[in-house]
């Protein structure tokens, strides 16, 4: 008993220490005051050295930087907005200390208002607003952590993961998303910091969803976070990251890489909700491999950011693997949500389903970009794709860019997409029952989002509904 | 049901679906002029038996033999079984958009009569059968089973049977989903078709079709086997007392 208590105390204390080493508070002060912008081998070396990483990781970073520099920007998607990214003007490791903490006054009004309307507690507000660097996780997290440990589950931030389980990290890091995959995965590989590392041993069923440090934590919201999740044979786990409340950051670029590996017979669900403030470019690469009879599910919600480009992918590499992607996007004023999903069937008897829901409001633009690919050997595979887009307002824009590449004959591939505004008949029906038009519209929009919200833990769902209500009232942005 | 008169002779048939055995050794002989009924609860293997005999790609016959008019069916492809005189009216006929009922029917009849056969009577025959079965003439140009109601599909199945005049017709749950008028029309169709040279096998869950088409023999199927046989009165008893009675009598549920 007392051992456990000691352990918990130790964990608590190391948590803070950990944080310090990670963010380099113990390192020479002058560096912070330099505020080095831009990325170079020097910066990469600095990151790696401060984290006291093994040489192989450092090598990976340097190699990735070369790839990043040699790769052109994507020639598709919102190339105009992408062109605005100034890589030379970004802090890749840490900001000068004076910039690190801004004052509450700097937080945009719309974000503060949203916090109030959502009823976010004071301490959390400050963290989400980027004012406080740290948010005290509740004790419940630590007791949860104990429970997990007993089952052999590893649930750490990525930096600790690399230190404590180097063997596993070395085996899987970059195995699903190599640095060379795209320009942003290369950048992330070069400068990554933070993220989550999860390993679930064979046969272990993680009953409660693992949330990135109980709702929020600093590491998880890093600019270039790196997440690696491995479910060993027959294991089951549900991971949740992000939060429905808006997150404010002065960093203009968020570029994460998430690798998910579902070994034979395992099952992984990954739920994300991003609500970055509307100055942020959110360019994320997420990919999973599903081995024999494994199941991978992405539940991916995009509410915030200025431009999001994110297409969670599942590679079905083992016979009988199953994949499901539920992608939701809400594009409000000046936002472009370029979201979507990819499924790549490599093994026979695999099946996948993609459901995409998007709402474009005011001058917002929501794009679905997808890939459904069946390799020659993936016989008897099945893909079903359904995209629904709702347009609200005359300036709203919706795009659908699905790609289906089918190299096998005995397969079934179905794709359907619909774009429409809120149906007059539905509005009429509801108003004839006494609802105001606004109430009716909100009800319809909530109904439209229902397939997504019902997959979320209750507290997220409630907050999301409230957020949509605010959006519909036009009180955000 | 004497051996030498056997039209359809099934011996110890075993059928598997996706490696799961669903019919576990059924033997049955149906003579010319006879009407048989197989009754049984859902999942007892009745439909599997019908589909297996017709050569459905998902139903594999793993053991046993089946002969129609002395010829072994099992080496034949489904079209050969059809031309050999076997007919199955499906419980759930598949829709084939783009293929009209008339075009399909003509091809089917032609395949039975042979490539160079005289088809001059086809249109008249087709019209007559449609009207006898209460099928609207407009169905000729509709796509096969595409958007048909349950009852319409069943009528079209019986229409095909009348047109093709098989020697042995298996009717799989033909009564399901029919209202009383449709049930009567369909039953009349079956009775018109039936004569002393052909055989009928009714596969059904309920007894109500048997009020209109009188079976000479009734078999009860459970868990992939024929567990009891009798005359028409057996059907009435089943209607009255349910399948539990058979289970109890045979001790099938012992220990549960």
């Amino acid at each position, binding site marked *: 008993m007392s051992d456990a208590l000691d352990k918990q105390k130790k964990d608590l204390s190391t948590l803070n220490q950990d944080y310090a080493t990670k963010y380099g508070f113990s390192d020479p002060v002058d560096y912070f005051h330099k505020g080095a912008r831009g990325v170079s081998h020097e910066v990469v070396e600095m990151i790696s050295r401060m984290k006291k990483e093994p040489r192989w990781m450092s090598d990976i970073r340097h190699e990735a930087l070369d790839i990043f520099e040699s790769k052109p920007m994507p*020639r*598709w998607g919102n190339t105009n907005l992408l062109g605005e990214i100034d890589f030379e003007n970004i802090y890749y490791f840490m900001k000068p200390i004076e910039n690190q903490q801004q004052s509450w006054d700097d937080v945009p009004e719309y974000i503060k208002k949203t916090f109030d309307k959502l009823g976010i507690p004071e301490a959390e507000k400050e963290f989400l607003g980027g004012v406080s660097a740290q948010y005290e996780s509740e004790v419940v997290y630590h007791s949860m952590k104990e429970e997990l440990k007993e089952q052999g589950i590893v649930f750490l931030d990525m930096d600790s993961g690399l230190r404590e389980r180097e063997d596993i990290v070395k085996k899987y890091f970059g195995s699903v998303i190599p640095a060379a995959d795209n320009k942003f995965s290369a950048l992330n590989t070069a400068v990554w910091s933070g993220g989550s590392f999860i390993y679930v041993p064979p046969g272990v069923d993680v009953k409660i969803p693992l949330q990135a440090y109980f709702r929020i934590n600093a590491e998880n919201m890093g600019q270039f976070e790196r997440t690696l999740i491995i479910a060993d044979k027959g294991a089951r786990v549900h991971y949740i990251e992000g939060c429905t409340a808006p997150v404010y950051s002065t960093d203009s670029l968020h570029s994460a890489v998430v690798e998910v590996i579902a070994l034979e017979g395992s099952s992984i669900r990954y739920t994300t909700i991003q609500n970055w403030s509307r100055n942020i470019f959110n360019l994320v690469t997420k990919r999973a491999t599903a081995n024999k009879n494994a199941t991978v599910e992405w539940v991916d919600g995009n509410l915030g950011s200025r431009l999001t480009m994110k297409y969670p992918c599942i590679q079905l590499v083992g016979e009988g693997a199953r994949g499901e992607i539920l992608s939701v996007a809400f594009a409000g004023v000046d936002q472009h949500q370029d979201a979507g999903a990819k499924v790549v069937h490599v093994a026979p008897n695999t099946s996948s389903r993609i459901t995409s829901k998007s709402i474009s409001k005011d001058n917002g633009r929501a794009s679905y970009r997808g890939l459904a690919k069946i390799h*020659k050997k993936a016989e008897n595979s099945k893909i079903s794709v359904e995209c629904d*887009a709702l*347009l*609200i*307002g*005359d*300036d*709203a*824009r*919706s*795009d*659908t*860019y*699905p*790609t*289906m*590449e*089918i190299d*096998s*004959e*005995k*397969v*079934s*591939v*179905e*794709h*359907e*997409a*619909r*774009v*429409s*505004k809120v149906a007059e008949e539905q509005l009429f029906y509801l108003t004839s029952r006494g609802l105001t038009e606004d109430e009716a519209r909100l009800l319809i929009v909530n109904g439209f989002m229902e397939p997504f919200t019902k997959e979320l833990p209750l507290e997220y769902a409630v907050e999301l509904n409230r957020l949509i209500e605010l959006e519909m009232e036009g009180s955000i942005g | 049901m004497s051996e030498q008169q056997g039209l359809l002779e099934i011996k110890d048939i075993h059928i598997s679906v996706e490696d799961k055995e669903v019919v576990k050794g059924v033997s049955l002989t149906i003579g010319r002029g006879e009407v048989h009924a197989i009754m049984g609860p859902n999942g007892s293997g009745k439909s599997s038996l019908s589909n297996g005999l*017709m*050569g*459905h*790609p998902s139903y594999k016959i793993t053991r046993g033999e089946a002969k129609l008019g002395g010829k072994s069916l099992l080496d034949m492809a*489904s*079209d050969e*079984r*059809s*031309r050999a005189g076997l*007919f*199955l009216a*499906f419980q759930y006929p*598949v829709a*084939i*958009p*783009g*293929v009209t009922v008339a075009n*399909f029917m003509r*091809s*089917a009849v032609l*395949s*039975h009569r042979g490539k160079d056969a005289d088809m001059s009577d086809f249109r008249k025959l087709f019209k007559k059968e449609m009207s006898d079965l209460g099928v609207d003439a407009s169905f000729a140009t509709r*796509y*096969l089973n595409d958007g048909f109601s349950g009852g319409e599909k069943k009528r079209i199945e019986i229409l*095909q049977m009348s047109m*093709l005049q098989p020697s042995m017709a298996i009717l799989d749950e033909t009564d399901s989903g029919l209202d009383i008028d449709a049930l009567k029309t369909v039953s009349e169709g079956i009775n018109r078709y039936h004569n002393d040279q052909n055989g009928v096998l009714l596969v059904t869950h309920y007894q109500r079709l048997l009020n209109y088409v009188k079976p000479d023999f009734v078999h009860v199927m459970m868990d992939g086997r024929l567990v009891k046989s009798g005359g028409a009165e057996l059907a009435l008893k089943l209607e009255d007392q349910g399948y539990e009675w058979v289970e109890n009598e045979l001790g099938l549920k012992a220990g549960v």
Partner: protein
Amino acid sequence: MAKLDSEYTIPDLAPELQRGPTWLQSRRQTLREKFNDLPLPPRGLHLWRYTDPSKFMQAQTAEASATGSRFADLIEQERKHLSESHLAGLVTDFAGRDIKALGVEKLAAKGVVITALSDAVESHLDLVEKHLYGLIGSEMGKFEAMNGALWNDGIFVYVPDNTTVEQPLHLLRESGGAGSAQFPRLLVVVGRNAELTIIDEYGGGSADKKADPAYSNGAVEIYGLEDSRTRYVSLQRNEAATNSYLTHRAKIASGASMLTVPLAFGGALSKQNFGVILNGPGAESNMYGMLFGSGRQHFDNHTLHHHAAGKTHSNIDIKVVLRDKAISAYTGLIRIDETAQTCEAYQENRNLLLSSGTKAETIPELEILNEDVSCSHGATVGPIDPIQLFYLMCRGIQLEAAQRMIVSGFVVPTLNRVPQDMRERITRFVDTRLENV
């Protein structure tokens, strides 16, 4: 002999550049420069994801013979149709150079013009100058610029306001043999409340797979003025060693309707781009296409429905049947502009795969820039449904016949959308192709 040359540039002195009046020569020069300046489209990027653009870099140097030959029987048969008044006219086009219009005298009396583009440049200068390059000009891309600079002669069709051309007009285009390059061009103007049906048939080329391929790069511009009704069938049945590139653009004004039927059966490599711009309220465009690929045929088709005006309606239904190692890539875009309110747009692409070596890529795209729309698309890829096959065989129909029946059933609903009077002709083309399935 013409050779594939990805570095090819149009020389300053290419004889085609000197053809036509000064304004035309100057347009040709601009397009020549455009072609020379533009790099080859980068592979992998959008419309070039599945096709190697260098395959269309074939120089215009072949000395093609003056008259075609392969179509002799067909021409004979069509002459008969002409005499029986089943056709409005027959235009033969050999190698985009030798244009002959037959049986068009009666229509000429009604003011209908069916003639070589080189003649029209003189005789109908205003119409030609106003419309030529209006839809396919220098902004379209490298290969469109290539045709624009190098077309030798084309076909011009004009139907005056309130005039109905009852029977279809048949354009019969034959490509030259191995190593030849041709740049056929068509310009059609259908006047207000006028009506026209065109069957634009492309054939010939090279059948010799060991020799250099024949190459055809075509451009079709069609203008449907207010309340006009135009039906356009494009039939590609090139010989087996022929590569073809075709860009089609039609613009229809308010109240006008356009039916486009793209049918692609032949050739080794075929890249076709069909687009209709709905430019006025009440405009309606339908595209019902079919494609049959076998052997190692490679098809790369695009469609565009661009709703530039409100209260417009469009529908696309493309059926693809592939066997052996044939490949089809289909990219279809529906675009609805910000100002185009109350539009309806639908799109469907179904692919039937008959053998295991086939590849089908389908990309149905939507770009919707305003709220007041109703828009949907669907795509499917799959083999013959074994349960359908089983059902037919259960009724005694043999395997091959049952397969044919299902393939035919697959395309019939699309075929049935084509108006009755054209359906028979198209069904004939389709049936010939189905026999080989």
